[in-house]
């Protein structure tokens, strides 16, 4: 079971925060996996595969997020999503 659960705490680092283009990349990546993905900010947890739910978080630069994945590919998806955020979604 251990491999079916993964979690990471991280900080939004790109200047403009989780805007729509960034979220679209995030959702596309998350949706490649069958596991459940949730993103939590200030105690509010939302579906990590929903564009509107993630945009509703309004995560600016410096926001602290917790990403949790449960199910097949949990470790991989969390690794990929962490990389997207750490790489600032390819922004300068």
């Amino acid at each position, binding site marked *: 079971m251990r491999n079916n659960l993964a979690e990471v705490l991280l900080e939004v680092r790109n*200047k*403009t*925060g*989780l*805007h*729509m*283009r960034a979220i*679209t990349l995030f*959702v596309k990546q998350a949706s490649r996996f069958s596991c459940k993905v949730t993103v939590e900010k200030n105690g509010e947890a939302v579906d990590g595969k*929903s*564009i*509107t*739910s993630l*945009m*509703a*978080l*309004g*995560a*600016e630069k410096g926001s602290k997020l917790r990403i949790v994945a449960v199910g097949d590919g949990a470790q991989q998806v969390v690794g990929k999503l962490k990389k997207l955020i750490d790489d600032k979604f390819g922004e300068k």
Partner: protein
Amino acid sequence: MKMVDFLKAEAIKVSLEAKNKKGIIEELLELLVQTGKVKDKSNVLNAIFEREKIGSTAIGKGVAIPHAKSNAVTEVTAACGISFEGVDFGHTVDDEPVRLFFLLVAPNDAAGPHLKALARLSRLLHNSGFRESLMKATAKEELFSIISEEDRKRQ
């Protein structure tokens, strides 16, 4: 931030006439020109088209939020419109034609307010009942009052 802070009743059109993506964006932007919110239409138009080139701002369930940053506005401002027939807005998550549009423009240095406005819009639009009642509105005053009411109900 509330939706009524950046969307005024005068910038709503419940029967958009354009039949394609480009025309819809122009029609929505014209509402902001008429209300005096946008001084330089072509500047904003270009910024929005450039943004759409990166990827469609259609977010599924018949909704699109075309947006851009431009110094042709002094504060975050939005227009809203409904297309009765719906238009193809480029690839979306569900490939449904888009019927409900929110066009959002923010000054270049207003990343924070821009994100907050998008967040507020998304939070309300996540509610399917709200989306459906907006799409059924037949007058701009009606659409605006549905938005004001939802704004009051939800934190």
